[in-house]
């Protein structure tokens, strides 16, 4: 198992153990924390269509809206009563992104692109998390992200 995969598992276990309680999603309300727990469960496997939709939405929230809320409409629309994602869930958000940010040498172009897109979003999430009071593990997460950036291989010419 590559070093970063071991690190992913270790950090995933730690941040999952420390998660605060959170409400379940309902028909008209998607709970961000619940989505993150679901994404954490499938780390190590290629994302299915639904997971891919959630990952894309999280990237968009981080990089276009520049904020992540505690809840959204089922299609990731803004809820008027939403509040920012609490500090206790930021480490899981970052692990969910960084754990998928490495592609093997056999990865096709889109798999490689998705991995780099998630690494990019993970870096943005780290920057934002460092401005939120009380987010744990930012130093370990930053070190991991830096390692992933340093290990980006040269792309095979498409």
């Amino acid at each position, binding site marked *: 198992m590559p070093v970063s995969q071991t690190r992913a598992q270790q950090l995933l276990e730690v941040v999952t153990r420390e998660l605060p309680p959170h409400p379940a999603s309902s028909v008209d309300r998607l709970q961000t924390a619940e989505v993150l727990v679901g994404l954490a469960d499938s780390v190590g496997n290629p994302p299915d269509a639904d997971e891919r939709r959630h990952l894309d939405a999280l990237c968009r929230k981080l990089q276009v809206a520049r904020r992540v809320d505690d809840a959204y409409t089922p299609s990731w629309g803004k809820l008027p009563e939403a509040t920012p994602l609490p500090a206790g869930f930021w480490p899981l958000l970052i692990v969910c992104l960084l754990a998928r940010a490495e592609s093997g040498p056999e990865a096709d172009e889109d798999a490689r*692109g998705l991995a780099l897109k998630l690494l990019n979003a993970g870096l943005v999430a780290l920057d934002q998390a460092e401005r939120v009071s009380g987010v744990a593990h930012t130093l370990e997460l930053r070190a991991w992200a830096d390692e992933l950036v340093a290990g980006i291989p040269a792309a095979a*010419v498409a």
Partner: protein
Amino acid sequence: MKTLELTVLAHEGPQVRAYLGRMRQAGYRPSRILLMVYSQTPASGKPVGRWLPGGLRRRYAERVQDMVQNFWPTRIRRAHPEFVEIMAGEIDRISPGAAELIDEMLGNFAYERYAERVDRVLVRNLRDEALGPTLASRGPGAVLFTGGGILRANLLDQPGLRFLHVHPGFLPRVRGGDGLLWSTLVRGRPGASCFYMAGGIDTGELIATENFPALQFDLGDRARPDRQTLYRALFSFYDPILRAELLVRRVLGAGEDLAALPTETQDPSEGITYHFLHPALQASALARIFRGGTPADAPQ
């Protein structure tokens, strides 16, 4: 010189100058340029020359936007002339005449030299209500989009107009922002695609796509400009000329009616929509494009 039935919706800056200069090199000129003269500064939203009477205000605002939008290419060439020479020499591999084109883009640029007719319109931004009717005033046809923000329904829904856009990425694989840098990281080389604009991000009907050879700018033992300068240099020279090359080589000669060229439909589920690069990944991509050079703070 062949006149094309094409309106260039000009947003002052390196991109429109690269398009017009490269068209002139290839023996083309558009029938009309509609130059947007912004009545507000983009950064602060403050009115430009509010105290001046109409015609004088427009001329003043045009002068201001020339200085603002061409600030980086002008400054980079003044501060790092050898660096720009190296870039021009390498870009010449994909767009012959790149050095002359850069000279032209940064010289005394008079729009009247490039089109049969030049109109100027004072607007707040691309959403300004005056823009749609002004653009449509000469009837249906093709319009070349050259930047300035996101094109919205006030323009996209104007009857009879079709907007051409060149995106710096091979579609449908690379959509979204920073296409040139994402292409370098993911595909190992740049690409460009021309399409008719529609509502989504880079999802319109495709007219042409092309992969270009990977370019590397070898700085040798010269001073290496800082990351911001390298990034700005890409979007001052490399990116605009790459797009202009695709437009001239693959699109302008593809049919008499530029509003009705043959197209292919994109599958929106294919490819990836990227967002702007975080500085750490930006540095990684820039290190693959700009090789060598001595950092300014390195020991002598």
